């Protein structure tokens, strides 16, 4: 049993921290959001240079053979510094799906480009009206000779606004809410019949709704076994959720730091407000929540690679539930203790709060993961 970072992880974490602190000021970030493109191409290149984009891939493809824990180390820093780049959709999600299900041709074609920073990708697994149930897929893939013709809509696709290629789920057979009969397809963002409506999410990162209208897909763009995508989808979504939770933990750390600092400097009634016992205890609660959230983030990151779907699902859903509830209330306390200043957009607190809010909802909200945890824990025995 060991809860520390390895030496490599410490190095990685430190150099990423340095990169982001040096190049990613509040003003730079806000300008990227306000004026586009919503992330920094320079920093994306820097990620590529430091090997961040190669992290999870096998060494023989030029990767670093990193684990989900390595991804967590990265994600914590991305969250801490509110980095905007589509790391999770490109590297964790699309990269993960390719690793798990890609053909040799697909891997050699795409992974190298991801590693070099020349390819951004996204993965669309949910639809309008399906809420967080990835099995409720109305997008149809109709066979047409060896090709498939895709029609449907994918909603709130993280990184979908800037992705060059988007992996989408579509139904090749089965009833609308069945886990069977789902297939993944790699779609070019500029293919005929693809429309995307890009937007900023509330934390400034990009997302998109992707509409597919009779989009023709050749066999080479079918990812994995036809009709058997569910297992891959679940694992990719779990890895993405674990990484988002790690980002959220990084943001949480900053929420607590900012609040604690404010309690020390803000004076009212002739003393720092941190002298008021009620605020002290609220701050202590936030510390308790953070420590416990950290434990769960460690655990879900350690389990995100596992192909034991039940174990992995329970671990990831636990973390999503915990951060979704306790991180949420901690953010509310943080704003409350800041008072008026916490309501202003100029002050940075709100940015961290919104980052955590996105992590709370994306890939399933608290209720979704609570039900999933319950099902996995109590309904089988």
């Amino acid at each position, binding site marked *: 049993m060991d809860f520390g970072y390895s030496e490599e992880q410490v190095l990685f974490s430190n150099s990423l921290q340095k990169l982001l602190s040096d190049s990613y000021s509040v003003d730079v970030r806000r300008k990227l959001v306000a004026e586009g493109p919503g992330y920094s191409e320079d920093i994306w290149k820097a990620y590529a240079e430091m090997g961040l984009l190669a992290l999870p891939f096998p060494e023989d493809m030029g990767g670093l053979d990193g684990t989900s824990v390595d991804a967590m180390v990265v994600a914590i820093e991305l969250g801490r510094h509110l980095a905007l780049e589509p790391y999770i959709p490109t590297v964790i999600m699309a990269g993960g799906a390719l690793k798990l299900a890609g053909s040799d041709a697909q891997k050699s074609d795409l992974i190298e480009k991801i590693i070099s920073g020349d390819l951004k990708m996204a993965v669309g697994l949910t639809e309008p009206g399906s809420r967080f149930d990835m099995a409720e897929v109305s997008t149809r893939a109709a066979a047409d000779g060896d090709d498939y013709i895709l029609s449907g809509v994918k909603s709130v696709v993280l990184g979908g606004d800037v992705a060059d290629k988007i992996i989408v789920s579509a139904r090749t057979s089965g009833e609308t809410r069945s886990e069977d009969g789902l297939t993944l397809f790699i779609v070019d963002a500029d293919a005929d019949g693809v429309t995307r409506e890009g937007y900023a999410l509330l934390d400034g990162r990009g997302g998109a709704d992707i509409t597919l209208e009779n989009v023709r897909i050749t066999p080479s763009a079918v990812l994995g076994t036809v009709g058997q995508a569910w297992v891959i989808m679940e694992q990719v979504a779990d890895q993405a959720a674990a990484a988002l939770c790690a980002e959220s933990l990084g943001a949480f750390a900053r929420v607590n730091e900012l609040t604690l600092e404010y309690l020390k400097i803000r004076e009212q*009634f002739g003393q720092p407000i941190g002298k008021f016992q009620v605020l002290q205890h609220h701050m202590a609660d936030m510390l308790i929540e953070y420590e416990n959230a950290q434990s769960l983030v460690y655990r879900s990151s350690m389990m995100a690679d596992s192909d034991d779907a039940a174990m992995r699902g329970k671990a990831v859903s636990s973390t999503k539930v915990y951060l979704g509830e306790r991180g949420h209330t901690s953010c509310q306390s943080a704003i409350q203790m800041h008072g008026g200043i*916490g309501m202003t957009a100029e002050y940075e607190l709100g940015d961290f709060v919104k980052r955590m809010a996105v992590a709370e909802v994306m890939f399933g909200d608290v209720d979704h993961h609570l039900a999933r945890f319950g099902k996995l824990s109590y309904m089988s025995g």
Partner: protein
Amino acid sequence: MDLNYSAEDEAFRLEVRSFLENKFPKDIGERAKAGIRFKKDDYYRWHKALNEQGWVAPHWPTEHGGTNWTPVQSNIFDEECFAAGTPRQLPFGTRLVGPVIIHFGNDAQKERYLPTIRSGEEFWCQGFSEPGAGSDLASLKTRAVLEGDEWVVNGQKTWTTTAQYADWIFCLVRTNTDVKKQAGISFLLIDMKTPGISVRPILTIDGDVQINEVFLEDVRVPKENLVGEVDKGWTYAKFLLGNERTGIAGVGLCKNDLENLKTIARSERKNGKLLIEDPLFQARLSRAEIDLTALELTNMRMLFDIGDEGTPGAIASVLKIRGSELQQRFAELQMEATGSYALPWQQGALEPDWNGKAVGPAYAAARSPLYYDRRKTTIYGGSTEVQKNIITKAILEL
């Protein structure tokens, strides 16, 4: 004991409804329902309609245009307005500075200010809070020094809601630094067009610009703009804050929220059923509705208890605390109910002049902004912590 409204009250409710039906501009109500932001003109048109009906300052003495409504009637009026989606009547003129002028102002001030407050020709804003004086309001630092016939004012106010629309600001200013901090404060009326005043809007986390910083640099204010006695401003401020209580619970607002929430929960689907049928969501919705029912009744009990005397006790703090929490809760539940489509940050879609197409269902765009905006309710008007301190002293006597 009887929970029913009297026949008179029911008749009054119909009268209010009919007024709203005929006189409240429909386009404003529709924008309100969709979460679109109000323009200055919306506030003004609503104010004008109220004034024409003689309902713009119901709580003022009748000789100044008040209506003599009972507290229950005031409450009915608020409820119906919220149900119809009227803008909140900006409180600064009729609700806040008006009563101060009526009680403590001289005849000249009453003649000068009350008519334009009623008519809406002049809008007001409130210059109380400062960067260093929030919960601890009495530590304010803005200085006013008498030079001849003018007060020369220097300092900074903040969190000044709708200052960008305002023609006048009523300010607490420090006129004496040699005494206890509460004892050296005066109450000054300042024309916003006076040289030396500048307004800097503050963007808030909900993406809106409603509050402002107001900078005062050698602002020269006629001597006669001081209300009441010099150095007695703290008394007037306390009187003013005490008048802020009616409607503090926000019951009407929450009822409107509840309806919106149910609409969303009947539109969203989960596991092939309506979200409103989902046991977990339904339980949260039920709890919020039960809390709201309790709050509404507690509000009524308070109105009943104070009767015509008009000065609610510290029990108003109970209403402020629970009301503000519920206003937050309903915003939170609406955001939750909306699911993923609460994530796109569609500021444009909330502007009155926007012509684009929003992402997701029509109700989605305003849900996150509303959630973040509502965080302020437990901060302003005396934070929850301050209210609990008031309860501690005034009711619990600890």
